[in-house]
């Protein structure tokens, strides 16, 4: 297929992660704060499906700016991965992200799992401030994207894939 004289390849179809993502791939990559500049924070949560059943060995990946809102800091990867345990729980340690121009501080989340035919994208915010991505979600559902502050350096962000009060996910 050509467009404007440039070749165009169709993106490969996404498929489910399946139930057997190697455990090894998700080990030792959930601490972004190690050796990084900024305020270390902890994010924990549970991931559940319909009826609140917890999901085991589900993979979450995050992508975020550094403490100053930079997305290209050579000393801070901004990326991490965690797998849930049998209780559906995950944990990240990271740096509190700074605001990027035009955006409130946030952390991008990617959900991969068996039974998910495609990846799901969502975003964690620290408060319900003005943000174009948060505001693309209808008002009644926005609070699901705002993490619960446990203490000054600890936040809880639960993800419900389906069911009442489910997490909003984005289409791109």
């Amino acid at each position, binding site marked *: 297929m050509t467009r404007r004289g440039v070749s165009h390849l169709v993106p490969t*179809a996404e498929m489910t992660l399946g139930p057997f993502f190697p455990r090894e*791939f998700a080990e030792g990559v959930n601490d972004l704060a190690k050796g990084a500049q900024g305020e270390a924070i902890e994010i924990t949560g549970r991931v559940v499906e319909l009826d609140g059943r917890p999901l085991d060995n589900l993979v979450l990946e995050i992508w975020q*700016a550094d403490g100053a809102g930079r997305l290209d800091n050579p000393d801070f990867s901004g990326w991490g991965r965690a797998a849930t345990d049998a209780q559906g729980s995950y944990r990240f340690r990271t740096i509190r992200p700074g605001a990027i121009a035009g955006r409130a501080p946030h952390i991008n989340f990617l959900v991969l799992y068996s039974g998910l035919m495609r990846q799901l994208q969502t975003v964690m915010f620290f408060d319900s401030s003005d943000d174009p991505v948060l505001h693309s979600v209808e008002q009644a559902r926005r609070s699901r994207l705002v993490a619960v502050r446990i203490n000054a350096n600890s936040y809880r962000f639960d993800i419900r894939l389906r069911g009442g009060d489910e997490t909003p996910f984005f289409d791109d």
Partner: protein
Amino acid sequence: MAIRIERRAAATQAQGIEPGYAQTARRWPSQPLVLRPHTPSELSGPQVQRCLPEIRGDLAGYGERRALGQLIRLRVRVADEDGAPLPGTVVEAWHCNAAGKYIHPNDSHDAPVDPNFYGAARLVAGENGLVELRTIKPGAYPVPDTDGWWRPPHVHFSVWGRVWLSRLVTQMFFPGDPLNDADVILNAIRDPEARGRCIARLVPSKTSELIYEYQLVVRGRKASPGLP
């Protein structure tokens, strides 16, 4: 370099729920996905090769440590939608052994473990966007609690492209396998051409390995600043 992400034709991607795959109806959101604006946060991405080292470029082994099964070599090219190769991109691959058993502790399938096979590799694409994996052909296996659904031989891939929204997790299939025609996951791709591109191509080999070629296309095109 600015990248833009365009919406994909629905028939080239699985939709959320597949009747033949019960868990999809428990996990795919009931509410429609929300369209959002793309900002630098989504249109940039991590340099994951700093976090993820290469692991095991060869899963087949040699001599007394050779894994059981048909020796194969996968030549996989990673490109963006412009067809530009993506050198330096990280590619993770995992698959079951020749008897249809994964190394994962959650795999309860009654098939033997192969002590010489560990089915997980991580590779970094070379200058022309190519990764090569020497391994053995995975077996088929039945999916528990289904009405006779067998997964055809397949290899899982996880790939990063240029930006966060280029992330691709998918599966590659082998040509000519009759199980391909009934696989719920492969046939969730409604467009036959898009589905066909998920099947590797067997190319002539003069070695002891069957050679398959494959292409992974990640989302993203170069933005053209001169155009609206």
